[in-house]
């Protein structure tokens, strides 16, 4: 107790933690900017247009220009809104979409918090994401945002159930909740191959969970103006926007960790395993993000009853069945990992 020194006990560990957090969040935020640019460029290519091509070489600085424009605008708070909750909602969305990155392993030992319940933490953080949207919809005190918020809450709660079952199937094959161990368990084969139906269910549920097309009914512009962020402007809109894209990247890194072997190369042979793990991880994330954008450019929007039917009547029984099948298979062939 007596040999307490501010430097050794408080400042050094505290500043190490802050430096680690910055080292993860800065690349994430910058990659959000490039993801927006990539999305616009890919959509333009799908629709035979040019896309952003004015700001910077090939228009690569477009998102920074957009952010600057939005931040310099006036932040309008509606007179009848519940002001504290109204301003808190985008902050919560943003913070939650960044909080999940604490447990993501980028490469062996490249992780801020290597906790034993990593996948549960990610699941918990993504299930909290709905609060930002409900709060925004309620605090705006306006019909369209409220309808958008209700749609979004119902949608996220329904798809979380099947995501939970998909995670359980993967955990049955791993025998641990630790994300690093989940990746290490895929050294022989990526789980995307033996658990292919679950991979598809997880990807589609991830689309619904992040409110992306074809499931973007909470912000359906043809019926709800802009959904839950109709009343938001300038900086608070930027926070929603950033939060949405950051959680898109988070969900795709979750997909990569659960099904595509995280930082592992596809085959453990010379030219492939010489490339560092981080680069493999980033390549796989970019592939999944491309799928997100590709789906957006290809499929029409679902009707709301179709969306609910898909979640409860198709994905839930399918994933439940697959949990039972996987457990039965593992026990029948005596392949249960680290049984006690």
């Amino acid at each position: 107790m007596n040999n307490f020194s501010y430097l050794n006990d408080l400042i050094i560990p505290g500043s190490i933690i802050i430096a680690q957090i910055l080292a993860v969040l800065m690349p994430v935020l910058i990659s959000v900017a490039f993801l927006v640019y990539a999305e616009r460029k890919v959509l333009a290519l799908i629709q035979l247009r040019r896309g952003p091509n004015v700001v910077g070489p090939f228009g690569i600085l477009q998102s920074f220009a957009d952010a600057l424009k939005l931040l310099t605008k006036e932040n309008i708070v509606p007179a009848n809104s519940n002001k504290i909750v109204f301003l808190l909602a985008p902050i919560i969305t943003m913070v939650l979409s960044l909080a999940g990155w604490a447990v993501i392993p980028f490469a062996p030992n490249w992780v801020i918090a290597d906790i034993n319940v990593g996948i549960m933490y990610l699941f918990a953080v993504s299930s909290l994401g709905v609060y930002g949207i409900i709060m925004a919809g309620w605090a705006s005190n306006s019909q369209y945002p409220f309808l958008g918020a209700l749609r979004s809450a119902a949608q996220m709660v329904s798809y979380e159930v099947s995501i939970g079952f998909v995670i359980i199937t993967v955990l049955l094959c791993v025998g641990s909740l630790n994300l690093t161990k989940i990746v290490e368990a895929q050294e022989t084969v990526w789980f995307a191959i033996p658990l292919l139906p679950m991979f598809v269910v997880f990807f589609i549920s991830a689309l619904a969970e992040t409110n992306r097309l074809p499931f973007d009914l909470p912000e359906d512009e043809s019926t709800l103006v802009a959904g839950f962020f109709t009343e938001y402007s300038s900086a608070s809109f930027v926070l929603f926007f950033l939060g949405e894209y950051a959680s898109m990247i988070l969900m795709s890194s979750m997909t990569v960790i659960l099904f595509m072997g995280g930082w592992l190369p596809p085959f453990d042979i010379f030219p492939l395993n010489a490339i560092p793990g981080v680069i493999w991880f980033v390549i796989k994330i970019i592939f999944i993000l491309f799928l997100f954008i590709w789906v957006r450019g290809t499929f029409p929007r679902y009707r709301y009853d179709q969306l609910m039917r898909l979640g409860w009547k198709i994905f839930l029984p399918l994933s439940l069945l697959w949990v039972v099948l996987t457990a039965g298979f593992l026990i029948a062939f005596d392949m249960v990992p680290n049984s006690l």
Partner: protein
Amino acid sequence: MYLYSITFYIFSLVAVLSALMVISARNPVHSVLFLILSFVNASGLFVLLGAEFLAMILVVVYVGAVAVLFLFVVMMLDINFVKLREGFLQYLPFGALLGIVLIIELGILFLSKSFSENTLSKFVQSPQINKVENTKLIGQVLYTDYFYLFQISGLILLVAMVGSITLTLRDRGNVKRQNISSQNYIDANKAIEKKKVKLGEGI
């Protein structure tokens, strides 16, 4: 170690303050939001204790599912705030009685030998807990020693679910339903009829 105690005090202070705000906030939606804040801080305290699995389950179940539905209901109700306060004095004695009983019970628990410092520290430092992940440990106990109780609690939840559905399910005759399979089996031959139209006559 000092960072640890600072985080402990932050979590517990916010948990207690937000619990106070749950009962003193004027707007019911604010009350629910403070309840959620209190849950999250309680799960932070669980993490500090080393019970990571319980902490995450608390967030997933209570914050991610139960409180969302709670918030839903509170938001959708058209509540008259003045009327809500009317019965305050009427219910005060009953509420105070409940509070006093709870405080006395907690006091007995703390003063009795079964909760003294020795037993608590023995429990926390038991070697098994530090070696094995607590997820595994909970699973080992839950699915062996308490297997029947676990199954019974599942059944109780199932009964509650079936009960609430039967209470609210009404058979309304005039509801139009979608027949998904017949929608899927539509093809161009069934939907479109080709007709030869003579020029200038129409159909």
